[in-house]
């Protein structure tokens, strides 16, 4: 019998070693591949999406079951870019732009949760944020200006769970309007301005690693995958910045953060300006409250 045990031990050890650390998906906390109850589900979507993003090599096989199985490499070589430029944060235009970065608080009573995230003013009385922040919310969403500034009641007028974008109408909002900038490219210096768990606005230096196409599930993990254009960013924002704008040094917006890497403190993911433009345009004129469906899983 011991012969069997030895053979088994060696076979298991060798087979196990076929999983090499560098081939692991860089993110954890991926999504379930089956519907889950929506109670108490922490908004994992971001991490989830990013887990699937993996630089767009993730191709869905077996889509009917909504499960993902990457073909090809699952861990593309990280694009090597210099570390973020700290001086970007101190640029006067960036600082001015951060006055248009708002804190979003949504209440989803059915899921027993209150969610805090970030949004930015991109048009008169219109704020963009992530759909997963307002998912399942009821009643007005609270929007507040930086540094304990004025609070406003906002209404979700556009809800795009596929892209993970929501637009809020904020009547009477007085804050600088940020401009979308589609020119973000690899190595560009940037700043992620948003609200981590502390209440104060934080600006972190960032650098664009690459513009990529990511294929993966939407915030509800619908069976049909969504294809999005994203930036992977070199930035240290492990405590999350969903909905935060990725600001260029001139204060324009390269994109909107929707995920950070888990296994890697140096990576965040953002939807590109190009990706969010259709929703931005539709949201400008939208003025009716729309349902925010269920909480995201």
């Amino acid at each position, binding site marked *: 019998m011991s012969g069997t045990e030895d053979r088994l031990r060696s076979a298991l050890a060798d087979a196990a070693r076929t999983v090499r650390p560098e081939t692991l998906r860089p993110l954890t906390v991926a999504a379930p591949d089956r519907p889950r109850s929506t109670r108490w589900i922490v908004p994992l979507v971001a991490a989830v999406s990013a887990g699937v993003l993996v630089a767009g090599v993730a191709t869905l096989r077996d889509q009917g079951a909504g499960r993902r199985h990457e073909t090809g490499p699952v861990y593309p070589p990280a694009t090597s870019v210099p570390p973020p430029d700290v001086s970007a944060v101190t640029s006067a235009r960036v600082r001015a732009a951060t006055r248009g970065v708002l804190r979003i608080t949504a209440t989803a009573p059915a899921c027993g949760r209150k969610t805090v995230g970030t949004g930015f003013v991109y048009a008169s009385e219109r704020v963009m944020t992530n759909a997963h922040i307002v998912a399942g919310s009821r009643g007005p969403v609270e929007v507040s200006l930086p540094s304990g500034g004025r609070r406003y009641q906002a209404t979700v007028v556009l809800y795009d769970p596929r892209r993970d974008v929501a637009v809020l109408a904020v009547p009477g909002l007085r804050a600088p309007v940020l401009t979308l900038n589609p020119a973000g490219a690899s190595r560009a210096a940037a700043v992620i301005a948003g609200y981590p768990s502390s209440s104060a606005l934080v600006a972190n230096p960032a650098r664009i690693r690459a513009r990529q196409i990511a294929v993966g599930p939407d915030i509800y993990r619908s069976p049909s995958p969504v294809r999005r254009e994203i930036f992977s960013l070199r930035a240290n924002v492990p405590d*999350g910045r969903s909905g935060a704008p990725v600001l260029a040094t001139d204060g324009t917006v390269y994109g909107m953060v929707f995920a950070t890497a888990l296994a890697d403190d140096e990576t965040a993911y953002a939807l590109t300006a190009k990706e969010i433009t259709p929703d931005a345009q539709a949201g400008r004129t939208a003025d009716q409250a729309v349902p925010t469906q269920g909480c995201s899983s």
Partner: protein
Amino acid sequence: VRVIDVGIDLSIRDQPPDHEATLTTLFREHYLGLVRMALLIVGDQPTAEDVVQDAFAALHRRLDRLSDRDNTLPYIRAAVVNGCRTVLRRRKRPFHGQEPEAVWSAESAVFLGEDRREVLLALRTLPHRQREALVLRYYLDLSEAEIAEAMGVTRGTVKSTTSRALAALAKKLGEESR
């Protein structure tokens, strides 16, 4: 270090930060091992990673309710074993589609050698519980108590399952006649 991105959930925010640090540590130290363990049960890496990531997601949601936060490793091990069961059950359903290429496929023989493959193929034909018991015992080198906890069964069941599994494996490998 925080573990999760997002519109931060206030219920998480109110926790002392070390819980998430616990999770991060767990991840750093055991993620690879858990994926390898899941691979040995389900056969392919993408599925194994899915299972382990799901387990971490579930653990993260439950962090604030875990009574013993120092004891997260047995908890997540059990979650992974359970996730593997779900996957294997689902594969038995009709119209499931093709299984991803497994570590015991002919292709992998190139890397692993025929002897290893023969053992893995034999392992694959065992009932799921037996396969689990052998992986936990002979790959992770867990104690009977730990295996019992991971499989959600008694130590007695672990003992009998393991010995039956080993006997079945020996038989399939033809060692009785050697």
